[in-house]
């Protein structure tokens, strides 16, 4: 039986793992290679590195991080953040990434999904979507720039489109639930699972182990992703897996 995946997400800026703390900017928390290895030992099923560097130097440092991590980490690694072209994606994959996650670039140029899924294979193209409920329109819309800019694209239309264009996976972040630590957005995630038949990674809202169990019991998503609760050690991956297993959710044990 296929296992539900637990995925820590690490934000990397200029080659260092940082974590966003609301209103306080960023704080360095460590060497990406060491953190990746630690998460591997702790039972992470996959790792996501989000490159939040704003400069070319920062992006080059990211490639170095990927190369170093890939030499010592033998679980899947997804890279997102700032990938704009087929060339960017190729560089990241050649450095050792297994998948890339595309967000704004895909919204801006949807044919990039066709082009890259044909070139590199659907399995390595994950489309990240920042979704937010717009009360006035009674629907979810896609946002860009870390949730700051609204687009005119409805989330459910977009996920259907990216599936038909060849994406192999979706990473859905609920902007309404992100950072609230009150649990995942089951309504949005269930709607998305009704719309597409590619695997979905849920993100936004995890505050404790029970939230992951609820997510997997309530929806058909394939994976749950979180950042701060794992980095702050509010909850351990093992704790999440033990509770999920106890509730009947199949988990991989290392």
């Amino acid at each position, binding site marked *: *039986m*296929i*296992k*539900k*995946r637990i995925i820590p997400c690490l934000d990397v800026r200029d080659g260092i793992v940082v974590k966003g703390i609301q209103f306080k900017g960023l704080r360095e928390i460590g060497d990406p290679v060491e953190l990746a290895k630690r998460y*591997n030992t702790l039972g992470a*099923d996959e790792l996501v590195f989000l490159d939040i560097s704003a400069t070319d130097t920062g992006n080059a440092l990211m490639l170095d991080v990927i190369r170093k991590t*890939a*030499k*010592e980490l*033998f*679980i*899947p690694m997804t890279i997102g953040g700032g990938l704009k072209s087929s060339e960017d994606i190729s560089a990241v*994959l*050649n*450095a*050792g*990434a*297994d998948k890339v996650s595309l967000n704004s670039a895909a919204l801006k140029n949807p044919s990039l999904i066709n082009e890259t899924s*044909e070139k*590199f*294979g*659907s*399995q*390595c193209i994950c489309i990240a979507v920042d979704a937010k409920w717009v009360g006035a329109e009674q629907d979810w819309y896609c946002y860009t720039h870390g949730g700051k800019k609204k687009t005119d694209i409805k989330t459910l239309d977009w996920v259907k489109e990216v599936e038909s264009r060849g994406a*192999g*996976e979706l990473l859905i972040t609920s902007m309404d639930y992100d950072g609230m630590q009150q649990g995942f957005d089951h309504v949005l995630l269930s709607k998305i699972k009704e719309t597409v*038949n*590619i*695997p*979905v990674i849920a993100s936004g809202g995890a505050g404790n182990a029970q939230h992951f169990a609820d997510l997997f019991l309530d929806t058909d998503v*394939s*994976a749950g992703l979180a950042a701060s609760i794992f980095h702050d050690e509010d909850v351990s991956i093992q704790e999440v897996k033990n509770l999920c297993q106890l509730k009947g959710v199949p988990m*991989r*044990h*290392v």
Partner: protein
Amino acid sequence: MIAIVDYGLGNIANLSNALHYLGHDVIVTHDKKELNEADTIILPGVGHFKDAMNRLSELDLLPVLNELKDKKPFIGICLGMQLLFEKSEEGNVDGLSYLPGTVKKITGSLPVPHLGWNQLDAPLPSLQGDVYFIHSYKVHTEENIVATATYEEPVVAIVQKENLIGIQFHPEKSGNLGLQILNQAIKGGFNL
């Protein structure tokens, strides 16, 4: 020396990383002489079946592979395993036909691709645990099966016929168990 067949398809950096980590000497090549000199041949592959067959043919690798498959450990991984079989629905083309069986799109109610950690079903104690799969097509065969997984229906996970081995999942991305399986495959395999 392990030779990874370089035919321009898929990301072989990580396979190479894993083999280095296990202490093996690795060469990534499509040079016939180098392939002939290697102790073990690994045929990797990510992407489209038809593209893969076209590339192998363009590089004139079919005769040398055909010869080597009878001579030394020969391991196909992911698409590289699928290529070992007779025919694929993906592009509707013939494969290398070293093993009996065909490759078909995964169907059913579960998401495609079959992506994630899935448990191996195998009698061998060394093959107990979860490994990382990511594929949309799967092999249909009745023979040479060493391990399967279940994704609504059975998925052929490892095959072996003498020195010829196929691994559908990514051993280089399957944690410690994956590395062990990769090493076991290189050292002769699973049922000899």
